[in-house]
C-alpha cells in the first residue's frame, strides 16, 4: 500500500494511491461547475420565505391578499395551505417534528411563516413585504439554563401532554464506579465550560429546484444535500409521494460540513410550490436565512471533573451536559445515540472510571445540533477532555505534554475498549505526540515562552506567548447496521462497478462530495484494486436514479464506509476477472497470479491477460465456465463491522497581546493518523480546512442571542469566518496506523482537524495568559474580560 510501488498511467497519474490532480477541478477552475443555483429550467419560478421577526409568538392572523394581488406572484403558501395537504409539520432526523410553515406559533427568530412563488427572485422578495402577519409576542426561552425553570414558557405545546422544555436525559458510563474513584483520588479538578453555538456556513447556502411533472407524476428535485438517498426516502415518507417517482439530484455542492444533511422547510416549500403552480420552482436562501434558520452546531454547556493521583495518573472523568437543541430536536445522528457519540469523551487516555449525563432542552432558537464537521459530537467530547487535561496540568503544575504522554493509551492496548463501550481499532498515540513535539520544536518553544514571560513581567513587552496541545481520537464511519440507523435506515452504503468492453470503468456511489474530491479518490481506489488508470474511471454520484442506495456523506464516513464498498466491489470484479482470464488462457484460476492490472500464469509471466483484455473477452464469445455470466461488473453493500478511529496530536502557538486581548495564531502543527492516505494531497487539504475551522471557532465564531431571542449572528458582518489573515501557514505531519478491519486500512479524515484543533488553540491562549478557563470564541473582548477575572457568557448578548 505504499505509494512507491504504484505504477504510473500514460497521463502521469498513479494507478492507485498517491498524489494526483483532482479530476473535478477541470470544471470548477473554468467556472463550469453546476451548483443548485446554476440550475435553470424552462418556465422556472422563484420562491422566497417569509420568516418570523419574533423568537416566540402566537400567530393571530396572516393576510396574504396584497401579496396575491402582486402582478408577478403566482402563489402564496401558508401553514394553513400546508395543513390541508398534511404537510404543515415534518419529521426531523431525531424522531421529533418540525413545522414547515408555522400554523400556531413561531418558535424561533427566522422561523418559516409563508412561501411566495413569483416570476423572478426580486418579485418574490417584494411580495414578502406585502404579507401582513398579526403576531402576539410571547416570552422567549433564550438561556438554556432557565429552560427548565418551573415558570418557563412551554415551547412545544404542539406536542401532546408536554408541560416543560425537556427533550431527554441520557447517560453513559458507570456512575457508581466513578463516584468511588473520585472519592479516593488525590486530586479532583472541576471546570465549567461552554462550547458555544456555531454554524457550518458553507460558502454556498442551501436551496433547491423542484419540478413536479404533472403528467408522469414524477418529482425531480435538485438540492443541496449531503445525503440524496436519505432525502428521497424522507420525501416519500413526508409527502406521501411514491419513492420511485422521486429523483433527488445533488449536483455540485459548495461546501456542506453537516449544514446540508437535514431537510429544511424551504425544500418542502419548493416541492409544494411546484405542485401548486405546475412549474419548476427554485428556492435559494440568502446568507441571513442560512445563519439564522439552518442547522447550527454545538451549544453544549459542560461541567467536567477529572480525578488523578498527585503524580499525574488520570483515574477518571465525568461530565454533566446541558444541551441546547433549539425549538425542534433536529439533530442528525444514529437513533440509538441521542447525544451522538459524545460518550467518546474519555478520549485518548488510559483510565477506567467515566460517566456522562446529557440533558437536552428546547429553547426559542433555530433547530439543528449536529453539524459543522463534528463527527456526531465527538467535537464537543474532544474539547471537553482536552480542556480538562489542561486544567489538571495547571492544578498539578505539570507540563501538559508530559501529562498527556504519561496517560496516553499504549500501542499494545489496541483494540481497546473504552469505559463507555467504544472499541478503538488501532493506534500508536505516543508516536504521534512525539512527532508533533519534534515538528514543533517543543522544548525550544517552552524556552522562548519563559523568556517572553520574563520580559513581560519586567515590563519590557505586552506580548505573551502560549503553547497549546490537543490529542484527539475520533470514531467515524458510522456505522454498523446492528447499532446504527437514522430514522430506521441502516447506515450501510451501496456501490456499483461496471467495466466497459474496452476496459474503461464507471463506479456509482451512494455518498456525495461537497468538495472532498470523490471523483478522484474513488477512481484511485478502483485503480489500486484493478490496475485501471484513474483517468479511465468515471465516478457517478449525487443522483438517486443513477446510484445505489446509501446514507450519504457526513461524519467522515465516505472513505470508511463507501470507500470500503468501492474496494469490495473492485475485488468482486477482480475475482470474476480471474475466472475469465483462466478461461481465456485455458488454465485453472488457481494457476494465475495478479500484478498491476493483469493476471498471468504462475511461472510464465509473459502468458497473461490485462484487465482490459479480460473486460473485452467478458463481453465477447469466449466460452465461460458453467454458472459464470458474461460482462464484468459487480455490486456491493458495505456494512462496516465497527467504526474506525483516526487520531492525531496538535500543537498551537499563539501570541497574545495582554494590552488589547488580541490573539494571533503564530504556528499550528498537526500530526494526523488516518491510516494510509489514498490521495495525500486531498487528505492534507481536508486537514487544512479543518484547522481553519478550529481557529474560527476558538477565536471568532459564535451565534449569540439577546434577551428577546434575537439572533446576533445573522450575517457575515456578525458571524465572523476566519480569513487568510487569521490563518497561519499550517504545518502538517503524519503517522500511519492502518485500521485492521477496513479493507484498505483507511480511517477517514474529513472532520479530524475540526474536531481536534479548537482545544489546542484555546489551551494555547490560556497557557499564554496563565488563566485556567475562558470560553470560545476568544475575541479580544472575551480575553480581556477573562484577564480581569470576570468572564462573559458568550452565548448571550454581551452586556
Amino acid at each position: 500500500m505504499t505509494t512507491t510501488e504504484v505504477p504510473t498511467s500514460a497521463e502521469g497519474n498513479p494507478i492507485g494511491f498517491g498524489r494526483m490532480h483532482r479530476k473535478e477541478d477541470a470544471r470548477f477552475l473554468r467556472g463550469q461547475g453546476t451548483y443548485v443555483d446554476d440550475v435553470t429550467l424552462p418556465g422556472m419560478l422563484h420562491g422566497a420565505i417569509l420568516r418570523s421577526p419574533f423568537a416566540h409568538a402566537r400567530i393571530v392572523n396572516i393576510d396574504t391578499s396584497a401579496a396575491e394581488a402582486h402582478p408577478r406572484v403566482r402563489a402564496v403558501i401558508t401553514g394553513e395551505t400546508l395543513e390541508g395537504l398534511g404537510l404543515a409539520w415534518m419529521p426531523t432526523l431525531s424522531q421529533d417534528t418540525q413545522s414547515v410553515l408555522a400554523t400556531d406559533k413561531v418558535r424561533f427568530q427566522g422561523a418559516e411563516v409563508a412561501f411566495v412563488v413569483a416570476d423572478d427572485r426580486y418579485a418574490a422578495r417584494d411580495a414578502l413585504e406585502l404579507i401582513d402577519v398579526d403576531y402576539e409576542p410571547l416570552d422567549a426561552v433564550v438561556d438554556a439554563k432557565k429552560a427548565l425553570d418551573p415558570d418557563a414558557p412551554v415551547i412545544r405545546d404542539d406536542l401532546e401532554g408536554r408541560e416543560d422544555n425537556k427533550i431527554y436525559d441520557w447517560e453513559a458510563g458507570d456512575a457508581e464506579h466513578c463516584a468511588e474513584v473520585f472519592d479516593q483520588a488525590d486530586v479532583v479538578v472541576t471546570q465549567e465550560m461552554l462550547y458555544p453555538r456555531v454554524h457550518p456556513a458553507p460558502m454556498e447556502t442551501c436551496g433547491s429546484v423542484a419540478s413536479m411533472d404533472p403528467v408522469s407524476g414524477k418529482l425531480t428535485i435538485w438540492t443541496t444535500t449531503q445525503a440524496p438517498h436519505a432525502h428521497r426516502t424522507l420525501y416519500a415518507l413526508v409527502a406521501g409521494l411514491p419513492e420511485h417517482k422521486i429523483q433527488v439530484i445533488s449536483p455540485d455542492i459548495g461546501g456542506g460540513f453537516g449544514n446540508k444533511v437535514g431537510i429544511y422547510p424551504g425544500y418542502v416549500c419548493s416541492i409544494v410550490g411546484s405542485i401548486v403552480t405546475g412549474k419548476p420552482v427554485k428556492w435559494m436562501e440568502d446568507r441571513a436565512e442560512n445563519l439564522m434558520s439552518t442547522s447550527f452546531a454545538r451549544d453544549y454547556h459542560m461541567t467536567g471533573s477529572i480525578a488523578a493521583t498527585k503524580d499525574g495518573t488520570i483515574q477518571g472523568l465525568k461530565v454533566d451536559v446541558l444541551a441546547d437543541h433549539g425549538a425542534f430536536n433536529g439533530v442528525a445522528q444514529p437513533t440509538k445515540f441521542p447525544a451522538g457519540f459524545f460518550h467518546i469523551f474519555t478520549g485518548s487516555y488510559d483510565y477506567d472510571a467515566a460517566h456522562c449525563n446529557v440533558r437536552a432542552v428546547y429553547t426559542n432558537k433555530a433547530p439543528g445540533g449536529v453539524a459543522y464537521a463534528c463527527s456526531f459530537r465527538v467535537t464537543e467530547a474532544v474539547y471537553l477532555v482536552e480542556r480538562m487535561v489542561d486544567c489538571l496540568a495547571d492544578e498539578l503544575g505539570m507540563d501538559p505534554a508530559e501529562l498527556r504522554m504519561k496517560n496516553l493509551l499504549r500501542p499494545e492496548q489496541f483494540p481497546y475498549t473504552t469505559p463507555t463501550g467504544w472499541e478503538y481499532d488501532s493506534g500508536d498515540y505516543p508516536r504521534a505526540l512525539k512527532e508533533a513535539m519534534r515538528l514543533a520544536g517543543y522544548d525550544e518553544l517552552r524556552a522562548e515562552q519563559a523568556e517572553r514571560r520574563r520580559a513581560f513581567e519586567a515590563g519590557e513587552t505586552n506580548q505573551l506567548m502560549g503553547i497549546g496541545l490537543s490529542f484527539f481520537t475520533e470514531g467515524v464511519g458510522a456505522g454498523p447496521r446492528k447499532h446504527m440507523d437514522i430514522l430506521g435506515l441502516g447506515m450501510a452504503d451501496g456501490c456499483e462497478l461496471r467495466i466497459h468492453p474496452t476496459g474503461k470503468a464507471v463506479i456509482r456511489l451512494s455518498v456525495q462530495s461537497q468538495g472532498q474530491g470523490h471523483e478522484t479518490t474513488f477512481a484511485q481506489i478502483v485503480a489500486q484494486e484493478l490496475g485501471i488508470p484513474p483517468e479511465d474511471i468515471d465516478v457517478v454520484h449525487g443522483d438517486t436514479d443513477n446510484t445505489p442506495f446509501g446514507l450519504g456523506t457526513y461524519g467522515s464516513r465516505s472513505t470508511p464506509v463507501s470507500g470500503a464498498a468501492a474496494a469490495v466491489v473492485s475485488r468482486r470484479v477482480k475475482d470474476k476477472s480471474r475466472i475469465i482470464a483462466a478461461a481465456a488462457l485455458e488454465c485453472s484460476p488457481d494457476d494465475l497470479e495478479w500484478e498491476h492490472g493483469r493476471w498471468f500464469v504462475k511461472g510464465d509471466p509473459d502468458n497473461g491477460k490485462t484487465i482490459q483484455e479480460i473486460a473485452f473477452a467478458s463481453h465477447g464469445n469466449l466460452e465461460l465456465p458453467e454458472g459464470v455470466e458474461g460482462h464484468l461488473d459487480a455490486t456491493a453493500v458495505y456494512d462496516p463491522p465497527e467504526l474506525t478511529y483516526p487520531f492525531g496530536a496538535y500543537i498551537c502557538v499563539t501570541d497574545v497581546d495582554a494590552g488589547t486581548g488580541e490573539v494571533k495564531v503564530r504556528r499550528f502543527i498537526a500530526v494526523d493518523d488516518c491510516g494510509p492516505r489514498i490521495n495525500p494531497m486531498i487528505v492534507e487539504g481536508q486537514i487544512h480546512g479543518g484547522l481553519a475551522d478550529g481557529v474560527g471557532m476558538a477565536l471568532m465564531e459564535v451565534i449569540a442571542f439577546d434577551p428577546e431571542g434575537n439572533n446576533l449572528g445573522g450575517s457575515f458582518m456578525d458571524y465572523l469566518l476566519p480569513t487568510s489573515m487569521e490563518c497561519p501557514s499550517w504545518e502538517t505531519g503524519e503517522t500511519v496506523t492502518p485500521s485492521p478491519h477496513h479493507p484498505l486500512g483507511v480511517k477517514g479524515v474529513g472532520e479530524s482537524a475540526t474536531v481536534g484543533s479548537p482545544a489546542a488553540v484555546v489551551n494555547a491562549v490560556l497557557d499564554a495568559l496563565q488563566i485556567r478557563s475562558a470560553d470560545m470564541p476568544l475575541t479580544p473582548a472575551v480575553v480581556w474580560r477573562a484577564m480581569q477575572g470576570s468572564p462573559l457568557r458568550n452565548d448571550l448578548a454581551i452586556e
Partner: protein
Amino acid sequence: MQVTMTVNGDEVTRDVEPRMLLVHFIRDELGLTGTHWGCDTSNCGTCTLWVDGEAVKSCTVLAAMAGGRDVHTVEGVAQNGELDAVQQGFLEEHGLQCGFCTPGMIMTAKWLLERDPDPDEGTIREAISGNLCRCTGYENIVRAVRWAAEHPAGADEEVSA
C-alpha cells in the same frame, strides 16, 4: 432600462430593472454561472469579477453601473480551453475543494498578479482577505498564487521544466 456592456470580449445588451445587481445580470441574464453569490453583506467575495480591470464584488454593483464598461468573469480566463497560470496553480497546489469560492479567488489572484507579478506570502494573504473560503484553510490558495507567480506561462512552462 437597457444596459449594454462588454463581457469577456462580447458586447451584450439586456433590458433589466434598474435595481438589478451585476451578479444577477451576469448569472441570470447571461447564464454565466461561474460567478457565484454567497452573502448579503459584501463579505464573501465569491462574486468577484473584473470591471475595467479592477476586481470588484459584483453583488455590490448595479448592472446599470457597469453599463459601457468592460467586464471579465472566470469563464473568460482559460484561452482555447487551456488553463491560465493562476488556474493551473490552483490545480497543481490543490487550491480548491468545493470550488464555490474558486472563481472569485481566481479573479482576485489574477488582479494581484497583474499589479505585483512576484508577491510574497503576506501580500497574497492580504490580497485575498476579502474572499472567504470555508474549505481550504487558505494555505493551498496562497501556494497556488505563488505557483502562478513562478510559472507565468502556466502549464506550458511546467511541461518544459
